[in-house]
C-alpha cells in the first residue's frame, strides 16, 4: 500500500481529465482545454501524457512506456516506475502484451490491436502555432476550418527545397475536419495513425487533450502533384536486418563509422531473439568476444 491515491492524481482531477478525454473522442482532432496540474516532473518530460495515463489506468492494466521507441531511456524508465509505484500496475516492454502504451515521439512498429490504448506526450498541440502565435486567432481558424496557411507552409517547403521538408510532427487532417499535430512522431509513423487502438494525446504545459478513436480517417496533408511520402533512412537495421522499421543512425567510432538500428527497441529485440541477423551484428558480436 502506497501513500498515494490510485494513479497519483486526486479523484476530482481525474474526473476533469476523463471528461476532457470523452469530449476529445467525440470531436476527433479537436484540442480540448483541460486544467493541467503540476506533476512531479518538469514540463517537457511528459506531464500531459502522464495525466492522461493516470486518468485511464485501472489496476488490471499492463503499462509500456517508450521514449523515441526505446523502453530503456531515462524518461521511459522514470514514468514506468512512477506508475508502478503509484498505481501498482504491471509493466512490460512487449508491445503486444501492453494494454496501455505511453509514448514520446514514436508509434510502435508492431500494429496495435483493438482494446489497446496509445497515450502520446505532446509538447505543442497546436499545429498552426508556428504560423500564427495568437491562440485567439488559431482557435478562430479551427472554428472556420481555415487551414490555407498550413497548405502555404507546405507549398513554401516545395518551392524552397523541391519537396515537403517537414519530417516530423507532420500535420494531419482528422475525419475530414480538424487539422491536428500528431506530436513530433516521424512522418514515417503517420500512416499508422488510422489504427485499431484508441489514441489519446496529452499536452501538460499547453493544457490540451485530444484524441483519435479507433478506425478514424487520418490523412497527412499534401498536394496532388506532391503526394505524402512517409520516408525513412534508405537502409536496413544493422542489428536485426529489418527493412520496414524506422531507424536511428548511430555514430560508433571516430573514423566515420556508423550503423542504423531500429528505434523501436522491442521490435528489434524480438526479431533478434527470433534469429534475424543484420549486417553489423556479427561483427559487433565478434568484436565483443
Amino acid at each position, binding site marked *: 500500500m502506497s501513500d498515494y491515491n*490510485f494513479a497519483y492524481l486526486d479523484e476530482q482531477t481525474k*474526473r476533469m481529465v476523463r471528461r476532457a478525454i*470523452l*469530449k476529445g473522442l467525440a*470531436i*476527433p482532432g*479537436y484540442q480540448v482545454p483541460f486544467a493541467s496540474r503540476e506533476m512531479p516532473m518538469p514540463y517537457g518530460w511528459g506531464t500531459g501524457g502522464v495525466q492522461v495515463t493516470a486518468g*485511464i489506468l485501472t*489496476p488490471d492494466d499492463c503499462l509500456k512506456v517508450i521514449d523515441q521507441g526505446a523502453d530503456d531511456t531515462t524518461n521511459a524508465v522514470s514514468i514506468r516506475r512512477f506508475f508502478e509505484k503509484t498505481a501498482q500496475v504491471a509493466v512490460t516492454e512487449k508491445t503486444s502484451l501492453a494494454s496501455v502504451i505511453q509514448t514520446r515521439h514514436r508509434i510502435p512498429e508492431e500494429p496495435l490491436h483493438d482494446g489497446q490504448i496509445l497515450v502520446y506526450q505532446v509538447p505543442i498541440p497546436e499545429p498552426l502555432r508556428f504560423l500564427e502565435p495568437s491562440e485567439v486567432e488559431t482557435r478562430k481558424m479551427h472554428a472556420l476550418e481555415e487551414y490555407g496557411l498550413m497548405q502555404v507552409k507546405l507549398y513554401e517547403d516545395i518551392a524552397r527545397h523541391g519537396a515537403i521538408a517537414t519530417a516530423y510532427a507532420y500535420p494531419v487532417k482528422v475525419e475530414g*475536419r480538424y487539422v491536428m499535430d500528431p506530436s513530433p512522431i516521424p512522418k514515417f509513423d503517420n500512416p499508422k495513425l488510422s489504427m485499431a487502438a484508441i489514441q489519446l494525446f496529452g499536452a501538460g504545459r499547453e493544457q490540451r487533450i485530444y484524441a483519435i478513436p479507433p478506425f478514424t480517417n487520418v490523412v497527412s496533408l499534401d498536394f496532388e502533384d506532391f503526394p505524402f511520402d512517409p520516408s525513412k533512412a534508405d537502409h536496413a537495421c544493422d542489428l536485426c536486418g529489418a527493412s520496414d522499421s524506422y531507424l536511428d543512425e548511430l555514430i560508433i567510432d571516430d573514423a566515420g563509422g556508423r550503423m542504423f538500428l531500429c528505434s523501436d527497441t522491442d521490435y528489434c529485440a524480438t526479431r533478434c531473439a527470433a534469429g534475424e541477423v543484420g549486417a553489423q551484428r556479427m561483427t559487433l558480436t565478434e568484436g565483443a568476444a
Partner: protein
Amino acid sequence: MQTQSLDGGFHNAPIEAAYAFRAVMRAMACPGTIVTLAGAEPPAPLSRAAGVVVLTLCDPETPVYLAPSRNTAAIRDWITFHTGAPLVAADRAAFGLGLWSELGQGGFPLGTAEYPDRSATLIVELPQLAAAGATLQGPGIETSAELSLPEIAAFQANARLFPRGLDYLFTCGDRLAGLPRTTKVR
C-alpha cells in the same frame, strides 16, 4: 433526514471509478459497443449504469439537468450527496439525465464553433438496449455497427451540427452504450 441517499455510492472510489471510466470511454470511442458497469446502487428509477456514470464523471464543476421522471427527492439527494453537482435547467447543463421522450426535446448547450467541447452529454435511460436496429458508421467503427436507438432523425440532425452537437450515453440496467456526435446513423 433519510439515510438512503447516503448509501449506494462507490465503496472504493478510485478503483471503481477507474474501471467505470474505462468502460464508458470504450463505449464512447467505439459506438455500438455495449459495456457493463458496476459499483453503484442508485435510488429507483435511476438505472445502475446511469448512477455509475454520474458518480464517475459528475462533481461540483458539472451542472446536471434531471428530466421530470428522474427529478425525484431521492435521486436529487443521492446525486447531491455523492457528487455535489449543482442541479440546473437544461440550457446550462453539462449532463442531462432522463428518458428519451424528455431529453429528445432538446434545449441543451450544443457547444460553440470555437469551443465545441462545451456541449452537454445526455444520459438517456432506455427500456431496452441491444446491438440491433439502427446502423452506425463513423469514427470508432471498423465497418458498421448496430444499436437499438429510440429514433433516427434526431441523431442524424445532431451529426449534421458537427463539430458542435450533443454526445449520448444510453443506459439500461447495468449496461451502457455511447453515441458521439460523429456517428452517422441510418
